[in-house]
C-alpha cells in the first residue's frame, strides 16, 4: 500500500515537473510572438491600414500611367503618318524611351528565383540563413549586369541604375514598392552567357549552399522568351540638368 502511494506520488511529481517544464518551454518559445501580438496590435492595425491604402492608390496610379502612355503612343503614331519630320523624331523618341527603360522589353534571358525557407529555424539555428536579404537581390542584379543583362526586373519592378533595393525589417522594398517572396529576378540577354556565368559565380554557389543546408529557395532557369516591364518613373530630374 505504502509502496503504491509512494509510486503514485512520485509519478504525480514527475508528471507535474514534466508538464511545468513543457509549459515553460512553450511559453519561452511563443513569448516574443505573444508579447508583440498583445503590445502593438492597435498601432500596427492602423499602420497596416495606411500601408494597404497607399498600395491601392499606387496600383490605381500605375494603371492610369499605363493608359496615358498608350494614349501618347496612339497620338504619336497618328501624327507620324502626317509628316516625315514628325515620323523621324517619333522613331528617335521611341528608341530613347526603350534605352531609358520606359518600354516593356521581351527576349531570351534567365530567371533567378529566391525565396525564404519554409523550415522553421530551431533554437540553435541562426534565423538569418533562412530568409532572403535585400543584399542578396543587389548582388544578383549586379551579377546580371556584369554578365551582360540588357534589362532587369524584380517581380513587377523594372530595375534601372537608380532603383533602390532596401529592407525595413523583414520587408524588402524595390523602387519604394513592397515586394513579396518569391523574388523573381529576370534578366534579358544572352541566356547561356548569363546562366552559365551566374551559376558558376561564388556568390550564387553560396546561395545554393544555403538552399541545401537551410532550405531557402534558389534556382536559375534559362528561358527563350521572357518579358520585363517598363519603368514607371518620370524621365525628368529635379536636380540634374544638362551641363553646357
Amino acid at each position: 500500500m505504502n509502496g503504491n502511494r509512494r509510486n503514485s506520488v512520485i509519478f504525480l511529481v514527475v508528471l507535474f515537473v514534466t508538464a511545468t517544464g513543457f509549459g515553460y518551454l512553450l511559453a519561452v518559445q511563443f513569448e516574443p510572438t505573444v508579447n508583440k501580438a498583445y503590445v502593438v496590435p492597435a498601432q500596427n492595425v492602423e499602420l497596416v491600414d495606411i500601408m494597404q491604402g497607399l498600395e491601392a492608390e499606387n496600383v490605381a496610379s500605375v494603371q492610369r500611367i499605363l493608359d496615358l502612355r498608350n494614349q501618347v503612343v496612339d497620338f504619336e503614331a497618328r501624327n507620324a503618318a502626317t509628316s516625315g519630320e514628325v515620323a523621324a523624331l517619333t522613331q528617335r523618341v521611341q528608341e530613347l524611351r526603350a534605352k531609358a527603360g520606359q518600354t516593356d522589353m521581351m527576349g531570351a534571358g534567365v530567371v533567378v528565383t529566391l525565396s525564404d525557407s519554409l523550415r522553421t529555424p530551431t533554437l540553435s539555428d541562426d534565423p538569418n540563413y533562412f530568409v532572403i536579404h535585400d543584399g542578396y537581390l543587389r548582388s544578383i542584379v549586379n551579377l546580371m549586369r556584369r554578365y551582360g543583362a540588357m534589362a532587369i526586373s524584380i517581380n513587377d519592378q523594372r530595375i534601372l541604375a537608380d532603383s533602390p533595393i532596401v529592407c525595413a525589417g523583414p520587408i524588402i522594398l524595390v523602387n519604394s514598392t513592397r515586394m513579396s517572396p518569391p523574388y523573381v529576378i529576370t534578366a534579358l540577354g544572352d541566356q547561356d552567357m548569363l546562366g552559365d556565368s551566374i551559376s558558376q559565380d561564388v556568390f550564387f554557389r553560396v546561395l545554393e549552399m544555403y538552399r541545401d543546408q537551410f532550405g531557402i529557395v534558389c534556382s536559375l532557369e534559362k528561358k527563350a522568351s521572357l518579358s520585363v516591364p517598363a519603368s514607371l518613373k518620370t524621365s525628368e530630374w529635379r536636380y540634374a540638368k544638362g551641363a553646357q
Partner: protein
Amino acid sequence: MSKVSAWRSSLLILFVISLVVGSLLPGQARVVREMKQTYQNEDPKDLIRVIKDLQQRKQDLLTEESRLSQKVSQYTRASNDTAAQVAQLQHEIEVLKERTGEVALSGPGVRVTIKEESSGASPSMIADDDLLLLLNDLWASGAEVISVNGIRLMDSTSVYRAGLNVHVGAKTTTMPLVIDAIGDTENMSKGLQIPGGVLDLLNLRRISAIVQKVSKIKIGIST
C-alpha cells in the same frame, strides 16, 4: 492489479495531456502564420519606413501621371499643328538624352571619398557588398546620377572588385574612389550618415569615407 491500473491511468492522463497540447499547437502556429501574412506583428518602425517609401512612390507616380496628362492635352491641342508636335518631340528627346547618358549633367550633390588603409599588418579592403550598399543608399536617399571615379553609372553598369582593381561597367579603376552624386544634397548626406549606416560599417572595417556637400557637381556622358 493496482500497479497495472495505475500505469494505465497514468498513460491515459499523459495521452490526454499530449492530445490537448498537440491540438493547441497547430492553432498557435496558424495564428503566428496569419500574423506574419498581415504584417500585424512587425515592428512599427519598419512599417513606418515602408509607409514613407510608399508615400515617395506615390509622389513619383503622380509626377509621371501629371507629366503624361499634360502631354496628352498638348497633343490634343496640337492635332493639326506639325510645328508644335515637332517642338514637343524635340523637348522629349533632350530630356531622354540626359537619361541615356548622351548629355553631360551638373547639379548640387555630394562627393564621397573612400580610402582603404594600406599600412599596417592587415590592410583594409572594401568589399563588393559594401560598395553596392553605399551606392544603393545614395540612390535610396535621392541621388539622380552617380559617377565612380568619373565613370557614370548606367542601368547596365556593374560594380565589383577584382584584386586591387575596381571594375565599373567595362572600365577599370583603382582606389581611392571618388563617388559623385547629383541629387537631394541634404537627404543624401543624412542618408549616408545615419548611426549604424553604411559609413559606420566602413569605418568599422578601417575604410575611411568622407562625405562633402558640393553646390555644383559635373558628371560626364556615358562612354
